[in-house]
């Protein structure tokens, strides 16, 4: 049984290599001078400089960041409210409401995205940034509700009761006791919402009209025309941003549970 654990550990390291090598290769080639990815490697920032002059990509980037921020604000507010209701009250239909959080996560985005395309066409919501935002919030909500709900599950209710007993008004109790205790969960949920929106490709792809895009949609178009190191450069920036968001999340939201 001594060999078993050692083999498992080696396997885990190999899995990490598998997960990271292509990303690293892609990132490194974004710093390579050759437009044809020719080796030997020659360090150059030429592709990052080219990005700075690419107005279409910059516009798409601004759209992506804008949508992600508004999406985060809406999804975090609505999701936290729903999570509070689930944690504080037991009511008929609660299980059904919680089960309804599965379809947005479990149904392929291809089907959800095309359904939104059809429905928004019928009720006359034009393809564009507003339609994309509507879709992103829907996909973010289940994540926020689950993450905030996990925090609420371990919430010490007695502290709130103590505050009330000591004469705090409901508003004071919420502001001085509930909100600070809940904050890590809410911040974790918000970062999830940001990552969901910032990385979302499929929904945006179907809801973006010609000329208005988000970063992933723009990149998809560029990849289909052919590979250029400029795509590597922008992809590297995206990876750094979304991985940064997750590392921040990890500070607030305990992954992997308690040990």
């Amino acid at each position, binding site marked *: 049984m001594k060999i078993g654990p050692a083999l*498992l550990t080696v396997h885990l390291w190999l899995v990490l290599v598998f997960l990271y090598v292509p990303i690293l290769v892609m990132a490194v080639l974004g710093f390579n001078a050759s437009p044809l990815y020719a080796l030997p490697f020659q360090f150059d920032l030429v592709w990052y400089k080219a990005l700075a002059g690419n107005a279409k990509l910059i516009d798409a980037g601004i759209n992506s960041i804008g949508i992600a921020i508004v999406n985060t604000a809406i999804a975090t507010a609505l999701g936290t409210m729903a999570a509070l209701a*689930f944690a504080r009250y037991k009511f008929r239909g609660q299980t059904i409401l919680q089960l309804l959080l599965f379809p947005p996560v479990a149904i392929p985005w291809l089907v959800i995205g095309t359904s*939104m395309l059809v429905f928004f066409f019928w009720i006359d919501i034009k393809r564009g940034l507003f339609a994309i935002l509507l879709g992103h919030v829907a996909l973010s909500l289940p994540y926020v509700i689950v993450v905030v709900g996990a925090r609420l599950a371990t919430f010490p209710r007695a502290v709130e009761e103590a505050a009330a007993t000591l004469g705090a008004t409901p508003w004071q109790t919420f502001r001085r006791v509930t909100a600070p205790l809940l904050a890590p969960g809410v911040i974790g949920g918000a970062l999830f919402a940001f990552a969901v929106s910032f990385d979302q490709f499929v929904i945006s792809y179907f809801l973006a009209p010609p000329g208005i895009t988000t970063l992933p949609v723009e990149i998809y178009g560029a990849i289909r025309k052919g590979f250029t190191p400029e795509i590597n450069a922008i*992809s590297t920036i995206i990876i750094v941003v979304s991985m940064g968001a997750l590392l921040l999340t990890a500070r607030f939201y305990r992954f992997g549970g308690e040990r």
Partner: protein
Amino acid sequence: MAVADRRNRGAILALTGPAYLWLTATIFLPLSAMLYCSFLDKSPLVPQPPVLTLKHYAAFIDKAVYQQLMLWSLELGAIVTLCCLVIGYPAALALAKVIKGRWREAMFLMVVLPFWSNALVRTFSWAMVLRPGGIADQAIHVVVPGAPALNVLYSYPAVVIGLVHSYLPYMILTCYISLQAIDDSVIEAARSLGARSGALFRRVVFPMSLPGVLAGSALIFVPAVGSFMEPRILGGAKGATLGMAIEEQFTVTANWPFGAALSFMMLAAVLLICLALYPVARKRMEGL
């Protein structure tokens, strides 16, 4: 309880209402609209009033092309899920039962980190590695000079590799959660009662982690069957899937009703497979 229920009804409605109204308007109503659309004889883009028909479902049953695409997509989903299980389960086991303390936390984070990076970008990175003259090709030539050029990009294996890379963290995550919940004293007890490693795994550890295995499999199988972006970038013309056919109905040919019918056939097939496997899995879990 009933009285409290009534008094709280206002608060419950106010708290859950906005989120669920939003989900209704952007998920549930669109899915219903899509189902209705699949019965229309012509695209809503055409000005003439549509008539209800079953012809798009009939077309799926008539045309062998689309059944073939469905089979390929289901097969792709099954292969990807199986690969994720074979690769992901031992990794989750190492994470949950071998590695301890701060290392575990760090490695867990490393596993979920790429999951939150853009799927499109990760797919592109594989195209970068697998393309002819790409990094994999050059690495092989360093080891074996004069080896034939690697021709993996735009092939079926490339699509499988890309999808496994995309979904592997799901499997590790769900298996890890249920493996970590197994109390070490249970394992100790089985061992002190004379269970050998093989039996310990087969009779205790694996059955107890089955919920995680099933959750991970479902979370991977469903989106993998519906994938279209990965096959398009990594598979080229050889990676045809039902997802690609559906996408084309909406972006190229603008035949929305047929695309909608294909979508629901796909959802139905996936749901049927999950339902068919559910009793088998439950029986296995009851046998604990």
